Structures are given as structure tokens and as C-alpha cells.
């Protein structure tokens, strides 16, 4: 088991290096000197040259990449052009906001999505099922920015229950967590339902009934664990993507998280900051998949042995 995990971690390393290379190439084929873009039109050429040299932009691209890679190995993501602060500290400042939002949204998604999926499966093709599936379809199909605005209007502006935006109090996270969580809950509920319905047809479920188990025993003990595998994959992907910053939600609700940081970096052509946030989120997504893989083995003995 430990050996398997170590192997899996080692396999992730080349993936990470590949991703870094691709990101670096993509961001550097964009034409134009970012310093020139940032400076006012009539900036003097010698000033531009001096600042470019300060950031190492006068060197050939391959050399810049090696320097960047070397710094990365030492855990240094570079310095933001625009804010003149280390990318590490900018991400460290932004991440707690994103983390709080992600946890809140994931909780909303699981606490609603999984029970809704189970209930829909048990009450297949009844009003309960239709209602839950309707709600989850709505959650999946509503554009996040639209739902966010409607929620802000109703619950913050009209009813005044929660702040419109910001991240000062825990109440400010309620609306964004619901907006984000609803759409993930929809996916989770549909996936839980369809997998559970499939598993309920299995022979071992008939065996469980024949043993004299109650409905709760059959479904929660025997069926749910088998239906959970694909749901876990989806949950891991969702958490990783929530942690990488919900760009739209953070923007609409003015939450200074990773998503906002990335948007600002794009707007300002702040290459080190953009690279930093993308690499950071890549690591999170790789880690998310790794955790999903490990959970697979914990749940299913057949996978554990391979």
C-alpha cells in the first residue's frame, strides 16, 4: 500500500514538469515585452531596458526558463511585475480566502448532493426523484455569474440577510458557497443516483436482501460503498478545481482569492504571477487526483491488489 502511494507520487513528478514547460512556453509566445505594455506610452527606452534587465527579460528565453526552473526547485515562484512582491507571498495571502470558500462550497455540495442522490435512487421515478433531479439540473445549468447576481439581489439587497460581497465575515461566504455548491451538488446528486441504481441491480444486493437486512442496511452498507467510487473521483476533481479558485464567483463576490489573483495577473500581463497561480493550481489538481486514487484502494480491495 505504502509502496503503491510512493509510486503514484513519483509518477506525478514528470506530469508536473511537463505542465510547467507547457505553461512557460505558452505564456512566452505571447508577443511583446510585458514591461513595455505596462509602462506608459512615452516611457524612455533606457528605463524600459533597465527594468527588463532587472527582471532578467533581456536574456534568451531558454535561459530565462532554466533560471525560473531553478528558482522553482527552491520553492520560489518569482516576483510580480505589477505589484513588485514575491508571488509566493501573494498566493499565501490569497489562498486562505479560496480555501474557506472551497470548503464551504464542498460541504454544501456533499451534504445536499449525496443524500439527494440516494433518495432519488430509492424513490426512482417518483415526485421526490423528479424534484431533486430538477433542482440538480437547474444547479448544473445555471450560469454561475447569473445565479450569483440573482442571489445577491434577493438575499443581500432585498432581504438583507447576508452581505452583498466581500470576505470580512463568515456570513459573506454563505451566498458564494451556495452558488458554487449548488452546481457541484447537482453533478454529485446525478452521479450518486445513477451509480446507486446500477449497483442496486447487482446480485450481491439480492443476497443482502435475502439475508434479512433492512432497506437502510442494504442501501447504505452494501450498495452505497460500491456506488461511491465514481462519485469520489468527481468529488476530488471538484475540490481541486474549487481550490484553484472559482474565478467568476470570486470576482462577482469580491473575494480576494486565487481566482481573483489569476484574473488580475492576466489583465496586467503579470507573467510571473500568472505562471505562479497556474502552477500552484496544477499541483492542487494533481494532488486531488492522487488522493482520489488512494481512496479508491481504501474502498475497493480489487484495486488495492493491482
Amino acid at each position, binding site marked *: 500500500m505504502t509502496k503503491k502511494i510512493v509510486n503514484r507520487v513519483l509518477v506525478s513528478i514528470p506530469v508536473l514538469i511537463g505542465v510547467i514547460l507547457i505553461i512557460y512556453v505558452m505564456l512566452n509566445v505571447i508577443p511583446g515585452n510585458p514591461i513595455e505594455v505596462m509602462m506608459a506610452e512615452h516611457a524612455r527606452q533606457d528605463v524600459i531596458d533597465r527594468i527588463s534587465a532587472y527582471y532578467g527579460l533581456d536574456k534568451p528565453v531558454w535561459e530565462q526558463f532554466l533560471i525560473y526552473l531553478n528558482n522553482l526547485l527552491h520553492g520560489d515562484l518569482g516576483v510580480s511585475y505589477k505589484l513588485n512582491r514575491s508571488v509566493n507571498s501573494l498566493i499565501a495571502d490569497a489562498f486562505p480566502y479560496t480555501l474557506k470558500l472551497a470548503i464551504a462550497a464542498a460541504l454544501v455540495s456533499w451534504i445536499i448532493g449525496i443524500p439527494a442522490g440516494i433518495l432519488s435512487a430509492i424513490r426512482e421515478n417518483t415526485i421526490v426523484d423528479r424534484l431533486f433531479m430538477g433542482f440538480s439540473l437547474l444547479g448544473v445549468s445555471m450560469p454561475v455569474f447569473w445565479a450569483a447576481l440573482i442571489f445577491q439581489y434577493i438575499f443581500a439587497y432585498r432581504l438583507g440577510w447576508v452581505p452583498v460581497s466581500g470576505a470580512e465575515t463568515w456570513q459573506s461566504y454563505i451566498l458564494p458557497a451556495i452558488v458554487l455548491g449548488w452546481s457541484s451538488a447537482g453533478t454529485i446528486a446525478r452521479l450518486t443516483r445513477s451509480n446507486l441504481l446500477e449497483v442496486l441491480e447487482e*446480485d450481491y444486493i439480492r*443476497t443482502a436482501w435475502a439475508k434479512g437486512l433492512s432497506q437502510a442496511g442494504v442501501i447504505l452498507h452494501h450498495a452505497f460503498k460500491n456506488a461511491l467510487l465514481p462519485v469520489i473521483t468527481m468529488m476530488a476533481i471538484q475540490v481541486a478545481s474549487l481550490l484553484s479558485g472559482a474565478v467568476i464567483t470570486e470576482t462577482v463576490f469580491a473575494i480576494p482569492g486565487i481566482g481573483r489573483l489569476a484574473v488580475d495577473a492576466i489583465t496586467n500581463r503579470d507573467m510571473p504571477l500568472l505562471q505562479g497561480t497556474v502552477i500552484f493550481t496544477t499541483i492542487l489538481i494533481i494532488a486531488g487526483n492522487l488522493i482520489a486514487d488512494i481512496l479508491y484502494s481504501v474502498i475497493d480491495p480489487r484495486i488495492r491488489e493491482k
Partner: protein
Amino acid sequence: MSKANTLEIQHLRTVFHTRHGDLAAVNDVSLTVPKGKIVGIVGESGCGKSMTAMSVMQLIRKPGEIVSGKILFNGEDLLTKTPREMQAIRGDRISMIFQEPMTSLNPVYTVGHQVEEALRIHEHLPKEELQRRAIEIFEAVGIPEAKERLASYPHQLSGGLRQRVMIGMAMICKPDLLIADEPTTALDVTIEAQILALMKKLRDENGTSILLITHNMGVVAKMCDFVYVMYAGRVMEQAEVFELFRNVQHPYTAGLLQSIPRIDHVVDRLYAIPGVVPNLLHLPDGCSFCTRCRYADDRCFSTMPELKEIAPEHLIRCFSTNSALAQAAEQSEEVQHA
């Protein structure tokens, strides 16, 4: 109803409500399993034998429904029990094993957990006692290294071992009735012989009555005390096993027996009953076997024959009797001479 019968099914009718109309999977079936006996139900796929078993367990799923009849178990009608009372009976007083040992065990739990669970649901015992009983039943069903095997997952065991686990799980509460739904169909013949011998041994030791569902006449001959032959949801012939093989009366049963390939006869073509099982939604007006029966006359096409006794405890649902037998015998002669 005598106390000597573990199970007595009376005029059971189980119907599936489909879009095209009601379909009677089990149609007016009456059947008795005396205490300590092995009773067989034989028939082709779709004849209602498994549905009869599932009706006894009351595990018929929608759109299926038991519409009438009685299922007397130790004298009490199971159809009047509440779902909770049925839960207490299932796995404890009546247990069931299935055709597919490969898929009938839950892949994510150890077999020990699954066997102990069957006991834990019905008897509140401390953990050590559960384990002790599980080891004991594993030894009784012939699983080598019983203690170590408790920690195995189903995929680590062979088909024969898995079926032994299933039998162990079914027998751990010492039920009065074991329903075995084609328990050896998925196994090869040597394992089949072992599993059948095991079931017989458990019956002899515990006095468990067994309702054995099979399509294999060889298994019937080896195992059963009494046999019911089903076709299209109805019992066509019922008799004590020696009587049935010695004095087969119903053309359908005769056809089934004739279909068994024999190793000591050379034939060009194996015998098969002509035609196919009729669609249960469009049964003929008369006898449901009439379309495939070579002896059918006008009466057979218009009226469903009732079960009638033609010898002590030997009932058939057919108008013609000895003529059918004579002709069937003649025919099997022909096959032998061919």
C-alpha cells in the same frame, strides 16, 4: 396443514404489471416442502421457478406483485406478515442461495464480514462469538483454513469456494428452509457434485428442508425426494422422484427427460422439444403447452386441464395420460435406434 410441512404454498399467483398487460409469472401454484425433505422445482428458463422462490422470500420487486394465494411457513401465512416480520424471517428461518456465486457476494467486504453479518442481524452476539460461529460454519461447509479465509475478499476465492461461502452464510442461523436457486449451474461438474453432497450433508445434520430449483434433471435425480415440473408459470406434473422417473406421464416432462444427452447412445442430433416457451402475455387459450405438444387435440387448444391424480401423490395437468407415456417411450426407442 400439518406441522410436518415446513412450507406449503397454496394457489400462489404472482403477477407482473407490464405496459402490455398483466403477466402471470407464477400462476396458481401449490407446492409442499415436508420437513427435512429436498423438493425440486424443474423447468426451462422463464417457467416461473425462480419467481416462486422469490415470492416465498417476498423479494418480488415492482412491477411484480403477489396477488393471491397463501404461503404457509411452519403453519403461518407469510403473506400476512409485516415487512419487519419478514425481515426477521429472511436469512434466519428461511435463507436462500443463488445461481451466481461469482457475483452474489459483495466485492468490497471480506467474506468473514458478510457471513458474520448474516448472524449479527438475527442474533445479538459478541464479536468473538460471531467469529467463532463463522469459523465453525466455514469448517462445516468444507472451506480449508477457515480462520484465514475469513479475511479473504470474494475475488480471492474460486467459484466453488464462493458457493461454499454462500451456503455457509445461508446456513449460519440454522434455517428451517433453504431455498437454492440453481446453486450449481455456474459451476463445473466436479464442483457441482461436491456442492450437492454438501447440501445433502447439511440437510441430514440439521434437518433443514430444501427447496431446490434447477433445470437439470440429473440434479433432480441425485438430490430430490419430490419434484414439481413447472411450465409457463404452472405446475404441469408433480410426483415423488422415483415415481416421476419410472412413470413419467406429462408430455412436457417426457420431453425434458428425452432432452438429456446420453453418453452411451450415438445420435446425429440431440433431442429438443420443438418450439419455444410461449410469451406469458399471449398464452394459448387452452393448455399452455399445447402449441409444442405432439399429442395435443382440439380440447387442449380450448381448455386448460386441471391437475389430476393418476397415481398416489402423482399429479399431472394433461388430458391424455398413458397414451402420452406410451408414445413418448416409443419415441425414445426410435431415438435410441437411430
